[in-house]
Structure formats: structure tokens, C-alpha cells
């Protein structure tokens, strides 16, 4: 087992997810089976392959520093569950 139940709990905290005991068991199992499957990749000989940061053969895609018309504020806030004074309103943080 690569991933312990503690690992799942840790990732759940980082992801702001509340998991039941059942879910924790379940995710421990499924995450491990995913990793085991990915182990397949370790069988490929990569001794003469450079590490890559991107799968497409593209580099240097740039944009000129020219402004566009920003989104109308009504549109920007349209999906917000709550708003106040033109701002997104969120629950108490700490």
C-alpha cells in the first residue's frame, strides 16, 4: 500500500473536503489502485530521455502587452452566491 489512510486525511484537509470513515477507506483503496496502475510507466526505460515539462512540442507562446475591455461587473458577479458593494461576499475566513 503506497497511500495510507493518514495520507488521504491529509490531502482531504488540504483540499477542504470532509470525508466520512467509509469514504476514507474507499479513497485509500482506489487511490492505491490508480498508483499501482501507473506503476506500469516505471517499466519504460527512460535512461536517455530528457525530463519534459509539457507534452506538446510548443515553446514561447506570448501575448503583446495590450489591454482589452474587461468584463462588465454584473457579469463578473453573476455566478456569485452572495455579493456586497461590487464584491464577492464570502464566509468568515479564520
Amino acid at each position, binding site marked *: 500500500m503506497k497511500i495510507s489512510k493518514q495520507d488521504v486525511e491529509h490531502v482531504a484537509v488540504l483540499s477542504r473536503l470532509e470525508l466520512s470513515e467509509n469514504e476514507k477507506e474507499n479513497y485509500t483503496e482506489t487511490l492505491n489502485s490508480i498508483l499501482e496502475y501507473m506503476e506500469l510507466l516505471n517499466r519504460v526505460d527512460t535512461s536517455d530521455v530528457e525530463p519534459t515539462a509539457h507534452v506538446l512540442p510548443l515553446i*514561447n507562446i506570448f*501575448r503583446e502587452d*495590450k*489591454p482589452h475591455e*474587461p468584463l462588465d461587473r454584473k457579469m463578473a458577479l453573476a455566478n456569485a452566491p452572495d455579493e456586497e458593494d*461590487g464584491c464577492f461576499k*464570502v464566509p468568515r*475566513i479564520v
Partner: protein
Amino acid sequence: MSQKYETVIGLEIHVELKTATKIFCPCPNEFGGEPNTHVCPVCLGLPGVMPVFNKRVLEFAVKAGLALSCEIASYSKFDRKNYYYPDLPKNYQVSQYDLPICKLGSVEINNNGEVKTIGITRIHMEEDAGKLLHGGATITSSNYSRVDLNRTGVPLIEIVSEPDLRSAEEARAYMEKMKAILEYLDVSDVKMEQGSLRCDANISLRLVGAEKLGTKAEIKNMNSFRSLQRAIEYEVERQTEILDEGGRIVQETRSWDEEKGITVSMRSKEEAHDYRYLPEPDLVPIIVDPKWVNELRASLPELPDARKKRFVKELGLSEYDAGIITGSRALADYFDEVMIKYNDPKTVANWVMGELLRLINAGDMEITENKIKPDQFAALLQLQADGTISGKMAKTVFEEMFATGKGPETIVKEKGMVQISDEGALATLIEKVIAANPRSVEDYKAGKEKAIGFLVGQIMKETKGQANPGVVNKLLIEKMK
């Protein structure tokens, strides 16, 4: 105080770049603005959008790297730094992890005459987060917060120093030097109060002579040079006390409380830094052309150290004066402009450092907010040089110019401040004063040189201070021969 511990400080500086648009979308990069009016689907982090990198950000980052003698990476990429906070709509910040654009640089600082080289570990590019406005007085007493995403996606460079700084003063000198260099490069507004220049300090202590670094605390939320220095001084004191009592320093992030003058622990669940960096799949790698880097290198402006050397060598200014004037590009440019019209470096330097900086500091202003135009400044010095007004009058006129922006001739005329230097106009008055004060004249003739001071004083009184004291002195001596 005997030195038991050595202070070790490293600084992480965040610099907002002065581009026209944000780093990954064409929203305007402007300070302020009504909340959520500089936003688009990309910087709002809406699903399905694609970021495109602003070339100007790369240019500014490379320029900063070159000015700080860094190696420019031939291959660089972006990564996602994952964390959850309401000011970060995508739940990750696009930053650079293992392949930053610049590394291994250095900068020379001058701490009250002591010159020292500070290592630069790396410079990387990233996006800024939004702003939170809290409902209550503080974040902890608020029931809710408001989120303004105008700042989300504003381009930043983070400059990380080696732990080479040894005192609060050195840290301040380093920060001031960084501000000057970035201002000269014209890549940022570098205003600490507005947050375009921000700084976190990693501080630890170790026994003098020890190799191993002590446990550090990271201090945040210092919004001025003064608070940076105060925060470090406080933190050093706090850690010294703990170590002296045999305690252990806890590795943590602490926030500087300006009002109370203390640092406060910011313990939270996220304290265990686990950002799970991963390569940003929506942005392609950057390969920098060495020819372009050389072009940028050739285009760099004269930097503060070079300008200081030139001011000392070519203008004959003292190291100290040249250091202060070139410490800010705006001030050095202003000095140069006054010099075009009044080519006397020492006099201009004295006025700029004495009168101008005094008034600017008293008003807590920026050089660029100064109302006196360089040619008006030069005209004032000319009026003093040709004897139209005295040195004392010149200072009064200067204050008036600073307050109102009026030209010196206008003020001199309005206040009737013209100095009387005309010998004919003064002769009658001098004869009158000589006739009225035979005692002083006798004293002077008997060898009491001081007696002439009284006579000069009488004439100044008669002319309400407008007589040229030098001319008066000369005429008195002639008449009393």
C-alpha cells in the same frame, strides 16, 4: 550588549510589475479602480479558459535579473502552487518552482559606509492574488469578507536573497537598494505603502561562530522601510529571550503588528506548507534567446551604483551626497535637470539634500509630487548668485515655491523681497547711520573690528533686511577710512 548570537536574515521581495496588462490575460494592470472592474473569465478562474503569457513580464523579469547579475535560465517554465484561500479564485497560483527565470545573482549594499555583497538565490515570475476586505475591524473579528479580484493576475517577480544579511540595518539597506534598482529599471512603481513592493523576512539566530543555521521564523506584513527594521529588531529580541531562557524557536509564520510593535504567530491548519507544485499544463515552456538577452543587457539604464560613481568622479560630489541623490532615480533625474540650467553641482546638491528633501520628508511625499519645476529651482539659485536676493530670502522663497508651485521671480516681486545691492542707493543710508552712531565709529577706528557688526545691523534694520550685507560691509569700511 555583548554579542552572543549572530542574526541571520534572508528576504523575499515581491514586486508588482508596471505592465499595461496582467500576466496571463489582457485586463488592465492598474492600482485601485472600483472593485471587480479589471477582471475577465481568465483572471476570475472560470472553467475552460486558457492563460496566455504577457511577453513584457518576461522582459521585465530578465531586466531585473541582469541588473542583479543573475544567470538567465535558457529554459524556464511555470508551475501551479496549490492552496485554498478566497483571494485565489483558481485555488492555485501560477508561479515558478524548479526552473525560475533567473538565479545566482548578487547585489552590493552600503550600510552606513560599510559595503557588502548579498547573494540573490533566485527570481521567479508569478501572478498576484486578489484583495480581501473584512467586514469587522480585523480578519478574526469579521463575520464575513468581501473579495475584490482586480489585483488577481497582476504580474509579480519574487526576488529571494541568500541568508546573508546580519542586522535590521543591513536588511533595510538591502531593501532600499532593491527599490532603487527596480525604480531605475522602470519595471515597477516600488511603493511599499501601496503594496507594489512587499517583503517577507526569514529570521533566525545562531551562536556566534556556529555553522548551522538556527530555526527561523518568517515575518510578514511590513509596509514600510521603518516597519521592516522595527519588525526585525523586535523579532531578534524575541528570539534572543527565548534562547537565553533555554527555549526553542518554533518554525512558523508571524505577522508584524505595526500598532503594538510586536510580531504575532499566524498559526493555521495550512501551516504545514504543502503546495503540491505541478507543472502548469496550460502554459508552454519558455526558451530565452541569448541574443535577445544581450539586447536587453545593452538597453539597461545607468544603475544607481554607476551613477553614484559618475557623480563623485565627474561632478566632484562627496560619496555621501552622491549616495543620497542617486538613491532614487526620480531625485537623481531631478538633480540633473536643475544642473542643465544651473551648473554648480555642490550648490545644487546642498539645496536638493537640504531644503528639498527636508520639505519632502516633512510632507511624507514622493519626489515626483514636488511642485517646483527644475528650471524654477535653477532660477532661484541664479537670483541668489547674482545678489538679487540673500541666502536667507532664497530659503523663504523656496518654501513658498514648494507650497504653491509659483516661480521665484513672482514670489520675490509679490513679497517685495528684492535685495538692495546698489551702492548709490545704500550710500545715503550708510552716511546717515554713521552720523547717528559716532560711538561705534570711534570704536571701530580704535581697532574694535566688532563694532562694524552693530552698524551693519542698523542698516539691515532700516532696510527691513533687504540690504545686501556684503555690499553694506564693504561701503562702511570705505567710508570709515
